């Protein structure tokens, strides 16, 4: 609790002056509001009794004047309040955005993206609405309560005590409600989150659902959670339905008590009618705020939950950061060394990599093969520090990667992943993603080298075509070529390729292979390899098994070793090779091949 209050304080601290100012305005407003019943009282007791018309005019003028001041102050106060709320939200959103994008892969591996996104969106929204109106209203109500209390007691303590008495259970009722409602809302939010994930899975996995004809199972699952959500909502409603009418009732009860006891006093002449009306007016001044109190406490609960979750993210230290005194990297030669490297995931005992020792010379072309789960991807992910080693050290040009300035390390490493994620912006900007300052010529040159220029020109707006959900849908092969162009434009010293391009047709495949070989020239390259040609051409082949490098060497060395590589070769690769020989001995008749852009085959 205390910790979260401190967090809240850090959020509003930059706006301390504005908050003070808003509070002053608020105070003025409250005083003016409390002045109106006093004027009305004077009108009844003095103006009407004394029969003085001039008094009425003065009173009306006073009301009008105060009304004008109130309107002006009110304008300033309302705007200022919103100003504070939006600035707090603006800051918080910035902080979240910046923090989340710096959290490590390991964090994101375990955090469902949908949940993260909804936290940022929803929690900031609820915090914003509370930080603005909520807090100020809360302050106003407190000031009103105290102010009116003092006023009433100084006038007539007995009647004041009677009038105020219903407010005590009201305050108790609402604060109690506030305590419980936060938890209830959290439950509702969580269930809503559950419902979204079921929905998301169902939609993403729609083909699987259809293929196995499990629509009914899915519908049942959805209905169950939908029902749970309904029940939880009703629980909140039930609480709310209890509290809301009671607050209204208690305020009305105040009026009734004033009327009964105050009325008797007025009949006995102890107080004037004007005083009675003023008392009642003060009670009514409290009526609206009192009803809002329950709602506010409610919003406070929601905001509190949001605050908790938001700071859960903000307080997560990024695992992987630049060291305090980073060494700015010179241009790499491209020598990579692994010394006794082991890796395991944080909450896991099982090592993914064990005791890896490896030296890669500059400009060497390294192919990594091994079964699924043998640690190939993890191995390459250690070089740009997507993960940090659990033991040992990874060095580039003899320097521990953990001592380097992170951006200057990563900028020299180009990566083409198996799935080519593009951003929903223009193709040009996607290509220049790693180097926003690249010139038009450079971008086009990269696209050409990536065999993408041609299809880009065929798109409706060429390089300015927007990619993605709301724009043009590109095929897997097209996306991959843009991803290759993107890496190419970085002109990285070290290149990491996940060479799984087999989901495209033969023609595209051919283009991609050409693009890749351009990309690999003159750089240290690590390829998670699938095909024989790549493996054979490599200067160094690493064979991985269960987190270890079990064999390394060139194609011929490894064949001579007669180990795992030989086995894989015999079983898989050789099979391909023989087919290849079988086919390549026969001449090609290109005229029979019907491709749209045949010239790119030459």
């Amino acid at each position, binding site marked *: 609790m205390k910790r979260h209050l401190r967090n809240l304080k850090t959020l509003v601290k930059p706006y301390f002056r504005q908050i003070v100012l808003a509070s002053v305005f608020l105070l003025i407003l409250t005083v003016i509001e409390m002045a109106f019943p006093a004027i009305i009282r004077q009108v009844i007791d003095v103006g*009407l009794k004394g029969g003085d018309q001039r008094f009425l005019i003065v009173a009306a003028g006073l009301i009008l004047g105060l009304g004008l001041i109130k309107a002006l102050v009110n304008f300033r106060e309302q705007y200022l309040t919103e100003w504070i709320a939006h600035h707090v939200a603006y800051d918080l959103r910035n902080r979240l955005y910046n923090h989340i*994008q710096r959290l490590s892969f390991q964090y994101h591996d*375990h955090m469902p993206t949908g949940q993260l996104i909804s936290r940022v969106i929803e929690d900031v929204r609820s915090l914003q609405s509370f930080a603005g109106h909520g807090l100020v209203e809360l302050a106003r109500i407190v000031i009103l309560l105290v102010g009116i209390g003092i006023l009433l007691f100084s006038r007539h303590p007995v009647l004041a005590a009677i009038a105020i008495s219903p407010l005590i259970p009201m305050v108790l009722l609402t604060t109690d409600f506030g305590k419980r409602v936060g938890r209830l809302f959290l439950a509702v939010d969580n269930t809503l989150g559950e419902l979204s994930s079921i929905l998301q899975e169902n*939609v993403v996995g729609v083909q699987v659902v259809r293929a196995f004809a499990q629509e009914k199972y899915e519908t049942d699952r959805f209905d169950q959670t939908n029902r749970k959500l309904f029940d939880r909502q009703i629980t909140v409603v039930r609480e709310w339905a209890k509290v809301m009418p009671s607050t209204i009732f208690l305020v009305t009860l105040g009026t009734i008590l004033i009327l009964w006891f105050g009325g008797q006093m007025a009949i006995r002449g102890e107080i004037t009618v004007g005083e009675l009306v003023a008392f009642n007016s003060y009670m009514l001044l409290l009526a609206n705020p009192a009803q809002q109190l329950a709602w506010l406490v409610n919003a406070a609960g929601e905001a509190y939950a949001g605050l908790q979750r938001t700071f859960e993210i903000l307080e997560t230290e990024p695992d992987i950061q630049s060291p305090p005194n980073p060494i700015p990297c010179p241009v790499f030669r491209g020598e990579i060394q692994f010394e006794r490297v082991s890796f395991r995931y944080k909450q896991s005992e099982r090592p993914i990599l064990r005791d890896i020792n490896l030296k890669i010379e500059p400009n060497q072309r390294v192919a990594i093969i091994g079964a699924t789960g043998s640690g190939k991807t993890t191995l390459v992910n250690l070089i*740009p520090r997507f993960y940090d080693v659990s033991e040992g050290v990874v060095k580039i040009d003899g320097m521990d990667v953990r001592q380097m300035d992170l951006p200057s390390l990563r900028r020299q490493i180009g990566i083409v992943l198996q799935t080519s994620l593009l951003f929903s912006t223009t193709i040009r900007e996607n290509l220049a993603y790693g180097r926003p300052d690249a010139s038009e010529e450079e971008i086009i040159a990269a696209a050409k080298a990536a065999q993408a220029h041609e299809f880009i020109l065929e798109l409706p707006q060429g390089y300015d075509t927007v990619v993605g959900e709301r724009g043009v849908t590109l095929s897997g092969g097209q996306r991959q070529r843009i991803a290759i162009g993107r890496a190419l434009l970085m002109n990285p010293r070290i290149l990491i390729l996940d060479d799984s391009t087999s989901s495209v047709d033969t023609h595209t*495949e051919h283009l991609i292979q050409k693009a890749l070989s351009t990309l690999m020239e003159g750089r240290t390259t690590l390829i998670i390899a699938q095909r024989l040609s790549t493996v054979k051409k490599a200067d160094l082949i690493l064979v991985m098994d269960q987190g270890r490098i079990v064999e390394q060497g060139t194609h011929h060395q490894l064949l001579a070793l007669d180990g795992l590589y030989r086995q894989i070769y015999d079983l898989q690769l050789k099979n391909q090779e023989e087919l290849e020989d079988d086919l390549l001995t026969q001449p090609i008749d290109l005229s029979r091949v019907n491709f749209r852009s045949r010239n790119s085959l030459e």
Partner: protein
Amino acid sequence: MAVTAPSTVHEDIQFKGYDPQVIRGLMAFVQPYWKPLLFSLLLMAITSAASVAGPYLVKLAVDEGIDAGSLPRLRNLVLIYLAIAVVQWAAIYGRVFIMSRIGQSIIYDIRSQLFHHLQRLSLSFFSHYSVGRIIVRIINDVSVLREFITWAMLAIARDLFVLIGIIFTMLSMNPRLSLLTFSVIPLIILITRLFRSRAREYYRETRKAISWVNSVLAENINGLRVVQAFSREDRNYAYFRDVVNRNNLDINLKAARLAALFFPGVDFLGITAMALVVWLGGSAVLGEQLSPGTLVAFVLYINRFFDPIRDLSRRFDSFQSTMASGERILNLLNTPIEVEDAPDAVKMPPIRGEIRFQNVSFHYSDDPTPVLSHIDLLIPAGQTVALVGKTGAGKSTFIKLVARFHDPTEGVVRIDGYDLREVTQQSLRRQCGIVLQDPFLFSGTVRENIRFGRLNASDEEVEAAARAVGADEFIRQLPQGYDTPVEEGGAILSVGQRQLISFARALLADPRILILDEATSSVDTQTERIIQAGLSRLLDGRTSLIIAHRLSTITNADRILVIENGQIIEDGTHSELIQKRGVYYHLYRLRFEDE
């Protein structure tokens, strides 16, 4: 610098005024609850009457009780007031509870119906409609509707009731003073109108701005790995902070300024009315034309009179977004279902697996270009058939017709002689196993994912299926074996491992017809070796249709179909087609250049 979000972001944010068609559509959901709705409207009328009655009772108490010095009269009035307060309490309680319940029920109904409808929409729908948009429809848009139904509708009704009640009571107490008070109303209407048109504009802009913020945020989180790989953090942050988020801040501040002008303005007019009543009403009291109690009541009513007016102008915003949300929900619900069970559809009995295409053509409903044209083909039961061809040649459509994800636009697809349109989809698909290129796993344990193929399978059967495809070994090495949860982001399982699990899932379903859509392409060579054994087990004795690029998979097939431009241009075994020196031969020549 004028910054606006790219127009593509805004597709989902439309704004609508009153649209009777949308209202009618939404009313269909409200209709089942008309009885409790009517009841709660009745309760609403009671509470409004009670709240209007308050000041009138105060007037009576002042005039007839206190001024007249009559204690019994005062007591009676106080008791009446108390009774009214109790009634009001009960009525509000009932109203809030019933209305909220109705609101929640309607939400539940709409979400259920939407989900149900989604389960029946064709697959091509999902390629046009992104996951994000579907979630926004079912989660957010429906929530907007709820707010409208439970709170706004009620509040509008209450405001109107109270307004009418007050006007009526004031007129009956003293018409002249009432008209005097109402003289500020035209002014209020005027500034409300001025405010509303500007406010609408700002409201749109704020909604656009926040949705831009949210989409940029979401994309950055989704693409996080690329962001970090390319060290774009600083630049992205600067863009977010100075452009996207800033834009949102600026527009919101503009809107806030307008709102801060309007509400104090209305408030000031209310105070003006009060000053008028004090001056002229007070003079009337002096001239004995008005009782002091009435004056007091008038002052009290003025306080209550302006609240509903302010409230109503505020509701207008939410009304706009409700109309837009409502329309989008109805559009989704009204999306036609392309493939539906015929009314007299029969359950397909256990099949042998013979597939026959009779003069089959297909094109998508929104595009008249044929994807498949005039295909005639017989695949005998038990045959393994590989489909080969370029992207877009029609391979995927071919297999989708077999599983009846689409209906042919011409011709008939038959399995064991049954026209697929005459059998239930469920009985057909239960006998077709489909493994896709992207091995989708649901959150849940590995075991649950395999069991998805056949929900009533025993643990032993699940494990047997995993063993048969060669997945058992790695599953046992997972932290909790078969009970290891599968996580999003895939930290635990590689793509190849996921694919093996999806093979086990297909095997467990024990289909007669097996369809592999590039299922082995995301698997590495080593894993494929493991899979090959499992795969041949999977294919054994079933009719299989395979789309693949891997040579080994294709060459092992009993039969190869080369598809181009929606037609089967070559049909034969591997060696037959190689000898033929046609397209197949050349495709593979090309491929071997790379391999």
